């Protein structure tokens, strides 16, 4: 289906890709994560990462990268794991390349915003019938 605005579509796509791949570049694959590994929260993990709700609005690309991240962590070799103290003070392991701090924050944020704006753009495309409904230079 097309509303005949290819120029806009291409620009939106480029903007989306800038945000999405900047996020992945900053935080690594862990920026798009639909499940929490056991070492990330006191409830032993396995829970849904709420940021993924926003990221999922990006479409299949989010689920693809999420699955890639999950398979990378679950299938990690021994030398890709580091020993850490878990929340219950037992010794556990974490994936060596898990982003922490601002890298994790911004990587997740970039991808979540890409998904959210993608959703807003989809709503806009579905709701508009004529170009003159645009709000000028705002």
């Amino acid at each position: 289906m097309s509303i005949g605005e290819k120029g806009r579509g291409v620009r939106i796509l480029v903007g989306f890709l800038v945000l999405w791949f900047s996020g992945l570049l900053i935080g690594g694959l862990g920026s798009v994560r639909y499940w929490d590994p056991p070492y990330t929260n006191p409830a032993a993990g396995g829970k849904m990462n709420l940021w993924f709700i926003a990221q999922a609005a990006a479409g299949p690309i989010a689920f693809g990268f999420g699955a890639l991240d999950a398979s990378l962590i679950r299938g990690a070799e021994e030398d890709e794991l580091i020993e850490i103290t878990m929340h219950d003070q037992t010794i556990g392991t974490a994936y060596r390349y898990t982003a922490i701090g601002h890298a994790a924050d911004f990587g997740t944020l970039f991808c979540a915003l890409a998904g959210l704006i993608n959703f807003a753009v989809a709503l806009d495309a579905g709701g508009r019938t004529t170009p003159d409904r645009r709000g000028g230079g705002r």
Partner: protein
Amino acid sequence: MTMLGWVPFIQPLPGIQSNWLWLLPILIFGIAMMYKAVRVIDLATYWREVGIMTLQVLLAFLGLAVGIFILVQWIVPVLPSG
């Protein structure tokens, strides 16, 4: 030197913890690209509009930072305690 062993997209970008503020212009630029692609009437002015919006948001952040700095550093210390 830390960049030499970095594997993009697998490992997080090194050095972000101390340089995270530089990510703000990139974030705003990406948002402006998507936003202006929808809002702008004439696509010929697209990049100009994107640049203006990026600058406007950055200046707004700067204004907020200055405002909060003044509040925390100068106003709060002179408030009567208790």
